[in-house]
């Protein structure tokens, strides 16, 4: 009788077989089943075209954007263990992370630089999709989803900008939110503001900033938007985006 190695013993065990329902039998059918019956692997397409792997064609910018989003999620959650989004503590917690917490500086800097890189990667991804004509039917709806994801990326950058709670944050967000005053109908200095009767206390900007001024209430509001609301929305849009890439016929090929 052939001697069985330890790995064969593990693989033939009841526990292993209950987790991995398909063996390594090298047939087309079994290889597809290995992928499609595994919750993590099934996120990958069972087969892709050769051109989808050509870096000169895709630049892998969509994939890099997603990787950066994952890094941002992980480092962001790690930063949340120390950061308190209140006026008294926010700035000092940021400094605490930088100067005292072990590996705090690299977590904060990874979060910061990945955020910058994500904006750049999104633009390059859109540029590639545009230049290869990949926005054309049947992929036109996915372009729309992508534009919404761009907006989510920029909103994440904007809300994250306030969180260090230093002078740069406060004035950048002052300038940014003051543009909201000019929103048609909903901003108190915008056109048709008098139709809805909005004023500085109750308008689109006050909804975002929780009052007339950028203050501790704004910090808390931006924190919730930055950590919960926008990432959740972006994740849902990403699910649809990746799903549609496959349902619209995979990554578009060179003509």
């Amino acid at each position, binding site marked *: 009788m052939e001697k069985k190695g330890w790995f064969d013993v593990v693989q033939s065990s009841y526990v292993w077989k209950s987790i991995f329902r398909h063996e390594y039998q090298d047939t087309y059918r079994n290889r597809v089943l290995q992928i499609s019956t595994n919750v993590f692997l099934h996120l990958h397409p069972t087969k892709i075209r050769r051109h989808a792997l050509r870096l000169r064609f895709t630049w892998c910018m969509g994939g890099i954007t997603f990787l950066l989003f994952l890094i941002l999620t992980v480092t962001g959650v790690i930063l949340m263990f120390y950061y308190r989004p209140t006026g008294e503590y926010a700035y000092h917690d940021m400094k605490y992370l930088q100067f005292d917490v072990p590996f705090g500086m690299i977590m904060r800097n990874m979060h910061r630089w990945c955020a910058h890189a994500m904006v750049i990667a999104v633009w390059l991804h859109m540029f590639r999709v545009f230049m290869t004509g990949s926005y054309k039917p049947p992929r036109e709806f996915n372009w729309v989803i992508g534009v919404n994801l761009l907006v989510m990326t920029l909103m994440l950058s904007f809300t994250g900008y306030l969180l260090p709670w230093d002078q740069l944050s406060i*004035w950048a967000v*002052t*300038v940014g939110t*003051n*543009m909201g005053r000019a929103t048609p109908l909903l901003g108190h200095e915008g056109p048709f503001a008098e139709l809805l009767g909005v004023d500085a*206390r*109750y308008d689109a900007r*006050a*909804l975002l900033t*929780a*009052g*007339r*001024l950028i*203050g*501790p*209430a704004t910090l808390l509001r931006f924190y919730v938007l930055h950590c919960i609301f926008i990432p959740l929305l972006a994740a849902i849009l990403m699910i649809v985006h990746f799903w549609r890439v496959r349902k619209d016929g995979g990554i578009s090929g060179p003509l």
Partner: protein
Amino acid sequence: MAKAEDGTNPEASIWRFAPTRRDFFAGFLGWGAVLTSLGIGTLAFVRFMYPRVLFEPPSQFKIGAPGLYGVNSVSTKWIKALRFWLVRYDDRFIALSALCTHLGCTPRYLATEDKFKCPCHGSGFRGFSSGWTQLGANYEGPAPRPLERFKLSLGGAGDIVVNKGKTYRIDQGQDSDPGAFLPYA
């Protein structure tokens, strides 16, 4: 029941709008209740995001007796705390808002250049020697209109009272409105 040539029943088509009593209750009342409650929930959430009390500084302040401020001067005393300049001419006080009309930064008073200059995007506003009518008028950079003025009055104990809740705009000809300045010779 009559059938169309392709074998489907036109009477049963979902595109035919002929609600029965059951459709009416299920569709109009059922979905109506769902959508109404969602709508009310959305409105309630929007209202929830506007708290009744804002923990912001009050809008009206006593800033001391007029004699504390030198004649023909721009006082930067209240910039940090209350964000306005108290400008005194021969015959009047003016409370000039330090909120740039471009995007809301705080301009700096540059006495030697006789202007208020915003550090964010370079907007410039007329300084003291342009006279009280032109004080704070925008003349360089992206600011679209002059700096606003706050309401001034004299309190019971002889203190100047500034009310930041009421503003006057010289670009709308409000420079001589009662309250736009405090006459004091």
